[in-house]
């Protein structure tokens, strides 16, 4: 592992005046990787991306090259869709990437589209990002005027021409889920689709489709220029490249940082972000956006890397009740995940039950309503967690929360159900004493202390 803190891949043009303009981008070496890519065979490009160990930066960390290789070889129409619907609480990287370096995104899209055989690519940008949408739209206009888009390029595999369209969302977290996004792009409600078929087989307008995150795509020019092996080499384990983390909450210097893959939470918080302000100490953090189970103060030395956060023995298993781990299916246990890179830090004065309740209210608000476990369950989690936070909890509420969460996880069309269930179970596992203290404050719980304990069955 090469821990070079000065290495910048996706933020290399940050801080340069007018970095969003094509002329500045090209002066700094932009579009050379695209030229190089055109001299290669598309299949060789896919191999290079596979070799690079580039993994999806939107949340799941799925290997990008493998995702690309699922596109059927005989497909006539293929779509590339860039997911710029950044809305995972705690995540604020794509907005900056789009504003500061839209041409790096377009170059990445040109490379990916050539590799995939895509002729028309879409960028689905979050509706609220109006200024960023204008910047990207202007960049697209510049690229058309310069003949990069909308014109034939001669390549090692015949001619290649790409059109790019920016599509604005309209305020729905669920459209960040890739099949919800595709439905939204088709002019429908952003309801996630049942999988299979996966988008690589039947995606946008029923054609094979790859959906990639903004940051993922912006890594491609350097992979082409410097080689997949180099990219894999600067990463950690099976995760190539650098990682953008967005640090928010109780740190002295919140910010968006491009860092070596595998930096520990401790180094991130204390060395990079200046520690915890106001003379307080750390209580815990969420490592990858609000969907992910939190870490407590004893788990700070694990690298913020996809596999480490899922498997490192120094992180406790998320439990359904004390001593009973949550089952991800096939006996796999849940620790946490690197997710979208949104690191939210909270200090020892934080009301973690209220924090958890706010997360649950978010998922209840954003549940699309298709699947009963998520639609009903997320509402129960929000209401019960909120009454606990207010000191109005009822006897058995902690078990009720865990039961409901356990009933959502794995039982829904898309991952929004898990996104509500996992942090709920994670917060109870890591901060059970805080939940119990809240319950002890509640007159209702005290009055019912003689009632039978536990779960839905015990309730009237």
């Amino acid at each position, binding site marked *: 592992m090469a821990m070079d803190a000065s290495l910048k891949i996706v933020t290399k043009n940050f801080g340069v005046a007018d970095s969003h303009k094509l002329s500045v981008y090209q002066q700094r070496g932009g579009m050379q990787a695209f030229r190089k890519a055109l001299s290669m065979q598309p299949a060789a490009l896919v191999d290079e991306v596979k070799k690079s160990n580039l993994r999806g930066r939107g949340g799941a960390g799925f290997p990008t090259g493998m995702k690309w290789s699922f596109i059927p070889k005989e497909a006539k129409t293929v779509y590339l869709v860039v997911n710029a619907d*950044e*809305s*995972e*609480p*705690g*995540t*604020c990287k*794509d*907005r900056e990437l789009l504003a500061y370096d839209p041409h790096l995104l377009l170059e990445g899209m040109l490379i990916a589209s050539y590799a995939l055989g895509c002729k028309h690519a879409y960028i689905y940008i*979050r*509706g*609220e*990002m*109006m*200024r960023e949408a*204008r910047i990207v739209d202007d960049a697209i206009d510049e690229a058309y005027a310069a003949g990069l888009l909308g014109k034939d390029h001669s390549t090692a595999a015949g001619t290649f021409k790409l*059109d790019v*369209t920016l*599509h*604005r*969302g*309209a*305020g*729905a*977290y669920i459209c960040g889920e890739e099949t919800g996004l595709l439905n*939204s*792009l*088709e*002019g*429908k*409600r*952003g309801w996630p689709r049942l999988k299979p078929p996966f988008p690589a087989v039947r995606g946008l*307008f029923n054609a094979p489709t790859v959906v990639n995150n903004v940051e993922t795509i912006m890594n491609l020019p350097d992979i082409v220029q410097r080689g997949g092996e180099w990219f894999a080499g600067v990463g950690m384990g099976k995760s190539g490249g650098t990682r953008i983390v*967005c*640090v*928010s*909450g*109780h740190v002295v210097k*919140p*910010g*968006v940082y491009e860092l070596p893959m595998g930096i520990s939470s401790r180094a991130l918080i204390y060395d990079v972000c200046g520690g915890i302000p106001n003379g307080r100490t750390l209580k815990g953090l*969420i490592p990858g956006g*609000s969907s992910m189970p939190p870490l407590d103060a004893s788990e700070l030395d694990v690298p913020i890397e996809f596999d480490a956060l899922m498997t490192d023995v120094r992180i406790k298993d998320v439990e359904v009740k004390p001593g009973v781990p949550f089952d991800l299916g096939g006996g796999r246990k849940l620790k946490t995940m690197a997710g979208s890179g*949104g690191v*939210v830090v*909270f200090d020892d004065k*934080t009301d973690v039950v209220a*924090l958890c309740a*706010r*997360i649950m209210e*978010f998922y209840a*608000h*954003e549940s*699309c309503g298709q699947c009963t476990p998520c639609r009903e369950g997320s509402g129960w989690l929000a209401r019960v967690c909120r009454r606990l936070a207010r000191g109005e909890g009822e006897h058995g509420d902690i078990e009720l929360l865990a039961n409901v969460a356990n009933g959502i996880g794995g039982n829904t069309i898309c991952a929004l159900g898990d996104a509500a269930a996992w942090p709920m179970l994670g917060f109870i596992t890591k901060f059970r004493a805080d939940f119990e203290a809240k319950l002890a404050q509640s007159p209702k719980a005290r009055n019912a202390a003689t009632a039978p304990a536990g779960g839905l069955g015990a309730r009237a």
Partner: protein
Amino acid sequence: MPLEFSAQSKQRIERVLSRYPNKQAALLPVLHIAQDEFGHLPDPVVELVAKTVDVSPAHVFGVVTFYTMFHRARHGRNELMVCTNISCMLRGGYEILHHIEQRLGIKAGQTTSDGAFTLVEEECLAACANAPMMICGQDYFLDLTPQKVDAILDDLRRRFKEQQKMSPVGGGGSSTLHGVGPLPGAKA
């Protein structure tokens, strides 16, 4: 006379339609254009949009009510979207929201009687490292304090009054919707 798009909107819609293999895919962009022109999306606008992209009004209605940025009722000239999600909550997002409620004399979800402001409690707006924050129109207002908020509100109010002087219509959206009264429940 049936409702029609302005020539400028028609031009934008033509361009949008050319970017998709079918008309329905242009629904979200056309709804944005419609809301830009009419300020909100009551039934006559829903019907116009449905005709434009060749789907049923029921489909358009379903889509409009699914997305939080599309409004059935008239909104204030300045829509203040204040984030209270966790990153903002940890750094005083609720204090900012309550400060604005107090300053404007309205609750989140309401519009001031002069039509200058609509206040919305928002979910995460992707500026977590600059919490607490809010959006108004194209502008992100970052690292907010009550003092900063006061200055922003004063500035927006002053500009709203100037705009009102120039066009006596004033009030809600960016233009008036001819022949369409306010919907039941519209505050402005």
